[in-house]
């Protein structure tokens, strides 16, 4: 993998806007506006073959708008974008022929049975009927829906629908798989089953691009990710590098009586690199949680409950998307 800026608020274009050979997605100064509202403020991206790349960010961060531009359904308002080496503004159909798209909201045909959903979708890619049937059976097996092949979509659970959508996105054996919030709204069991399937695809060498607002999902699936907020990329790197760079090694969580947290934050502010006030607890970002905890006790503070843990992407996310009171 080529070197890239690991930090940087709103990464600057690389010198001379050079292109990294073999990028599946290459964007420089990419913007999207709807009327007066600019959803994406000029971002730079490079996704390499075989990579699992994530967009992390709160709702409204510009993740989905970016995904729709990458999916070659929404033309960029400004900047340069190339997908699979082609310009989506002139080669949309050629690009889409090689993409697999798993949209945020299901777009399955509720009146067709499960297998027909795949076979009909295959026809849009010009795949002949016999071949489409063969692929449909293979993919139903992959997403563990073979015994539901003749069932109607309306009879499927949320998790099964997502799995069917993923099977459908694979019908054309895509070079690049786009997953927009693949597990939003699913129960834990369904999420893990889905992650397991996506992990297998990753093992097979498929390039995945995932948007999510779940930190655990990003840590599970992504080799590298960008954090988006308000239409900008505010950080990028591997999950581990992001944690190293934007958070401390450990976090001490202190729980006091409800309503006391904001006042108490002042009294422990100097004990940690950073203190985050949540409604039900204080988060003290520190290199040694136990030691910090000991010093909290030395000051005569008696939290109702304490927990020392490793930093996670969630901490990075909270910091970067701006909810810290004391820094």
């Amino acid at each position, binding site marked *: 993998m080529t070197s890239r800026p690991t930090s940087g608020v709103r990464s600057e274009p690389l010198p001379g806007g050079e292109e990294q050979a073999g990028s599946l997605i290459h964007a420089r100064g990419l913007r999207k506006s709807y009327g007066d509202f600019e959803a994406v403020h000029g971002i730079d991206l490079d996704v390499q073959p075989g990579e699992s790349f994530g967009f992390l960010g709160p709702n409204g961060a510009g993740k989905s708008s970016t995904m729709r531009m990458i*999916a070659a359904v929404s*033309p960029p308002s400004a900047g*340069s974008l190339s997908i699979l080496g082609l*310009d989506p503004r*002139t080669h949309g159909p*050629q690009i889409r022929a090689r993409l697999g798209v798993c949209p945020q*909201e299901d777009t399955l045909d509720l009146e067709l049975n499960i297998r027909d959903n795949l076979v009909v979708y295959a026809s*849009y890619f010009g795949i002949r009927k016999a071949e489409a049937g063969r692929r449909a059976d293979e993919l139903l097996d992959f997403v563990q829906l073979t015994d539901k092949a003749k069932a109607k979509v309306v009879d499927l659970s949320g998790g099964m629908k997502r799995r069917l959508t993923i099977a459908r996105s694979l019908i054309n054996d895509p070079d690049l798989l786009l997953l927009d919030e693949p597990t939003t709204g699913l129960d834990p069991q369904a999420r893990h089953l889905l992650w397991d399937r996506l992990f297998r695809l990753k093992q097979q060498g498929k390039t995945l691009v995932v948007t999510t607002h779940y930190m655990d999902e990003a840590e599970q699936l992504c080799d590298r990710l960008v954090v988006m907020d308000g239409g900008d990329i505010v950080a990028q790197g591997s999950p581990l590098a992001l944690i190293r760079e934007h958070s401390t090694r450990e976090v001490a969580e202190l729980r006091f009586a409800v309503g006391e947290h904001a006042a108490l934050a002042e009294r422990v502010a100097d004990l940690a690199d950073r203190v985050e006030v949540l409604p039900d607890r204080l988060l003290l970002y520190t290199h040694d949680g136990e030691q910090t905890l000991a010093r909290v006790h030395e000051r005569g503070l008696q939290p109702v409950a304490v927990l020392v843990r490793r930093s996670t992407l969630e901490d990075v996310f909270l910091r970067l998307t701006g909810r810290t009171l004391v820094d």
Partner: protein
Amino acid sequence: MATSTTPVPVRQRLLPDWGMVARQRVYWTTVYQRTWKGSVITSFVVPLLYVVAMGVLLGGFVDRGGADLEGAPSYLAFVAPGLAAAHAMQIAAGETTWPVMGCLKWHRTYYAMVATPLAVPDVVTAHLAFAGCRIALTTGVFLLVMAPFGVFATVWGVLLAWPVLVLTGLAFCGLFFAYSATIRSESGFALIYRLLVIPLFLFSGAFFPISNLSPTLEAIARLTPLWHGVDLTRMLLLDTVRPGLALVHLTYLVVLAVGGWVLAVWRLDKRLEV
């Protein structure tokens, strides 16, 4: 590597790729297979009910009054072509209002389609082509049902009237499609059915010669697409063709069909981009 730096979004192509349109055959055949049973009986019964009630029974009264029917030999002969053309409009409305909203709102079919090599013009064209096929089938049956009533002047007239009926339907399809791709709620359909489809059905010369209307209303009626369809169909079926006027009718309907199609592509493109 190809990249673009144009600051303004480039409009996607307007013309369909016919290969891409053909790829949707499997989808639309599947749609037809699951809906044809519901439509096949009514396709035969509805024309029969109309022709018997309006043409034969009501016509009995009208003919006794010695009305001037623009040269038609009987009220049955006058009303039958009008009914066929009005029916084409109603099928057009049926195929391009609720189904379009369904593909956008309930099944999100169009969203799934444009994520594949298909583009908006391909999707619109295939849907309109399907509507055209449904209109062709239904009006074909309508003509068959009317045949035994002995109102058709020539076989040639019937063979030419059939495509004219399809054209009349298609003249509405694009407009209805564009409207349906624009509105967000199905309450908008009540509006066009009450303010457009029903008034056109009643006042476009299907049931009575529009010269019976007040001069202003008659002028308005002459501007409505359905009147052009009704009059052209009647000319062909009753062998009363006036070439100049027929050409005006034909041009009007073709322009409307093509214009509606362009409008539909534009509206769906806007809707899907957001």
